[in-house]
């Protein structure tokens, strides 16, 4: 053992790697390109029948046509306005109610069961009800999207408020800060990480509900476009519409990521 010969000497084996996923630039794009390339190749040589999947190049062509005829904006703009107004309504009321639930015992005791009861209701199922309540026009569409974003936002927000470091709140009280100051300067910024990650989910749900909202009485809109294509079994148009929704989702997630970087730069 104490001999310094080479006998029995070997480097300590390294076993501390892994379990630390990091950022790898471009991999996501490569996967997309490979997947689409595979489908293109499959549809061209006939392994994939045109009934099961449309050819990506045809979908792209449909999309270009959509753009050239100006129909793209005609469909996209009303959808975007429904999305923005509905989601903004649902998210802001959701954050407000979530904070109230996080702060007051009676509101919590009263509303948490209500939210739990509302959450699993399939919003599509009560669409006719929304039409009666808010009219067949834009009102019911805003309401549906707002309602769908409201519940996940509430749950995420009160969870986030619960997770605010209590020692910071006690600190605020010990320095004689007013109640409003504590809420504005300690609770709200402390809950912001949780609220933003909740927003990621609720905005994705808002996009999902966009199609449902446009099921009834919408002439224009991405959802209406997809539904029409679906009932005609026009796969190229269906996929063009679905792609727009996907891109919308990626865009929203990117924007929230930006917002997080800006608002949460203090995080370790």
């Amino acid at each position: 053992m104490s001999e310094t010969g080479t006998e029995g000497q070997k480097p300590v084996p390294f076993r501390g790697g892994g379990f630390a996923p990091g950022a790898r630039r471009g991999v996501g794009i490569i996967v997309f390109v490979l997947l689409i390339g595979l489908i293109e190749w499959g549809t061209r040589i006939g392994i994939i029948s045109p009934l099961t999947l449309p050819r990506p190049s045809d979908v792209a062509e449909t999309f270009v046509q959509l753009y050239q005829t100006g129909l793209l904006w005609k469909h996209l703009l009303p959808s975007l306005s429904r999305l923005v107004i509905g989601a903004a309504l649902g998210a802001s009321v959701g954050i407000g109610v979530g904070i109230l639930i996080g702060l007051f015992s009676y509101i919590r005791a009263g509303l948490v069961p209500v939210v739990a009861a509302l959450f699993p209701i399939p919003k599509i199922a009560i669409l006719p009800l929304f039409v009666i309540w808010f009219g067949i026009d834009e009102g019911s569409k805003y309401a549906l999207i707002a309602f769908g974003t409201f519940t996940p936002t509430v749950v995420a927000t009160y969870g986030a408020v619960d997770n605010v470091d209590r020692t910071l709140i006690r600190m605020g009280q010990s320095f004689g800060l007013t109640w409003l100051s504590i809420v504005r300067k300690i609770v709200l910024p402390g809950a912001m990480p949780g609220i933003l990650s909740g927003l990621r989910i609720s905005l994705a749900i808002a996009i999902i509900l966009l199609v449902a909202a446009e099921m009834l009485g919408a002439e224009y809109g991405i959802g209406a476009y997809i539904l029409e294509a679906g009932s005609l079994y026009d796969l190229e148009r269906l996929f063009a519409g679905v792609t727009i929704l996907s891109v919308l989702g990626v865009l929203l997630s990117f924007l929230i990521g930006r917002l997080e970087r800006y608002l949460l730069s203090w995080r370790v």
Partner: protein
Amino acid sequence: MDIRLTGISHRYGATEVMRDISLDIPSGRIMCVVGPSGCGKSTLLRIIGGLEQPTEGLAEQIGAPPDGCLNPLTFVFQDFALLPWRTVRGNISLVLEDHGIGTAAAGAIVEDVLARTNLSDFADALPKQLSGGMKQRVAIARALAVRPAVMLLDEPLSALDSQTRELLMDDLIGLWTRAPFTAVYVTHNLAEAVRLGHSVVVLSRRPGQIREIVEIDMPLKARSHGDPALEARQRRLWSLMREEARAADAELIDV
């Protein structure tokens, strides 16, 4: 402004944390409170500071706080309690924002306390950029900003390593020597207690009761690390606490 505690007892549910504590805290002096873990010393501090209500007994302020005092009873917490989203300056100005003093006056106070704690160069840093010692300096600066009548320090150095602890003790002694303040200093570290305390209150294990109050006459300025007279005091405190600490350590915690 003095603090008087009369017959304070406290229970969490069925657990009796402290029993019949009566204590006078005179102004201009640092009173250390030591005791084995779980003896309720931090709870006692929170009762003094109005963050908790005792089950029985009374905590009173005697006399008016001095002029210009914005928050008579001011805490320094063990885990610093800095807002991570505010800079050093922002964390200090936070506690001045609700007192209706002008922005200019508040700014002047912030600059003054930053200078007194040697933090001026770090004014725009975020807490995540600071070491533990620096974070606690910020918390001390924040406490000084409201010109407290009584500082309530809850194990302020316990989260720091021993070198940083020495440096901060020197800082505290320097601050006190320049402008004596009243402080209740809770710690489990006897070396800190004999360095910083004009008097040391020894609590028994749970339910916490006052076992003894040890006066230390030596001026703070004259005390130094490894001073034989202080070591003798520390040994005496340890002999008072040893059995209590051992018994407290062997206790089951039911929460």
